[in-house]
């Protein structure tokens, strides 16, 4: 089974500049306040260059490509 990288945003670092959504509208849209909503799927091979460009262009260094092949966002332990 092939697993490509996924785009991840660090929501604390992100300032909603929106460049990523311009470069990669296929995978990134903006919410009502201008912050990126990232499609939670592997980046298809045909979009890897654009994804890398979006990561490079982020002025806040908030976007990254996650190459670890594993399911996203398992529920995490909180204070309990």
């Amino acid at each position, binding site marked *: 089974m092939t697993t490509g990288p996924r785009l991840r945003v660090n929501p604390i670092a992100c300032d909603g500049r929106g460049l990523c959504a311009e470069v990669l509208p296929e995978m990134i849209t903006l*919410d009502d306040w201008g912050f990126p909503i990232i499609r939670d799927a592997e980046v298809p091979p045909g979009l890897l260059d654009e994804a890398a460009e979006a990561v490079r262009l982020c002025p806040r260094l908030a976007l990254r490509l996650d190459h670890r092949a594993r399911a996203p966002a398992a529920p995490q332990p909180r204070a309990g």
Partner: protein
Amino acid sequence: MNTLDSGQHLVRGATPVQAGRFPRLLPERFGGEPASLEEHVTRYGQLPRGWDGRWREQLIAEVGRAGLTGRGGAGFPTARKLAAVAAGRDAPVVVANGTEGEPASAKDKVLLACAPHLVLDGAVLAADMLGARQAIVVVHDAVREVVDSAAAERRRARLDRVKVKVMTGADRFVGGEASALVNWVAHGIPLPTATPPRVSECGLLSRPTLVQNVETLAHLALIARWGARWFRSLGTTAEPGSMLVTVIGAVRQPGVREIEIGTPVNEVLGLAGGPAAPLGALLIGGYFGTWADPAVAGPLPFSAEGLSAVGGSPGAGLVAALPADVCGLAETARVARYLADESAGQCGPCVFGLGSIAGALADLTAARRYEPGRLRRWMAQTEGRGACHHPDGAVRMVRSALAVFGAEIDRHAQGWCCGRRPPGVLPVPLRRSP
């Protein structure tokens, strides 16, 4: 097989709280004074010590058999968290979480005020077991003195091998979130940090960090004494044990009670004296919890399994009874505004999303304007998009309100409110100056 389960060799000088009996954590009668070390040992016996080299694995396995879950709200299995921290390469750190920033909840404060040594037993045991040199106990300002005195009492008695350090938590809602608590202890900043890494992997001083609610630690201290079978003599098969609940609102004797998990919600209200007025709705779990119709939720068992029928969970153990003559929408709008203001202010979707949602609810409550489609879009765009779960919890509560208060929404949209009394059942602290 079950080395701890047989019990006898572990118990020194005290009869176990009889299996199947309560209360386990709270005193039989509230006397006002915190239990001294002597009273504590008389009731529970000494914390067992001097086990063989494999006791860490044995105790984690015993906690797993007991089925203890976190009592801070998320209900994460304690044994799994202990194992995750124990698996780290560096020596771990233990942080007991008694910050209880949720304004409606009092159970951690009451536990610390009545039985500080039971919590300290659990914190010291967890630290000892994991090879941590100190246990950091972070508590709400209201109980700091009690916990300080208890820690001093233990130092004088040379009771513990590990050092106990007591701190006051940051008195704000997100301050109890695990990464925010670690950030507060390390840097004095009560704000969540980005995950990964989780604090169980990389927390305080970049070490694996166990952040555990104080009630969970109290249960841990009892499981170490009397084993899994004793612990499971209360509660349901899936969710064993007892838990502390805070019952507030329109009940005759509001306050903190210890219940067997699975007790019907109506009986929980009964333990607080029963309804003091006809009830319109219940908020179950906490401010990240779920609004429910009392007629529907009343007969349900207070457990994750039982409350799932109304989309709820025990959370941090809150049951708030809203009288029928107070508008649930207005209450929801107040709490939503509070939660928006309590955002750490770090993640855009949380800041703007919760702010927009709170504004829409205020408009709806004042019958100024209601656009359900827009509100639902905002909730979808806010949920799951913060570094911590603050926006998710707030949205969950609002979503349940929209489901339960449908009739009120219709009336408000037509320009009038059903409430004959102003809202104010749910406590919302005044906003601090920034």
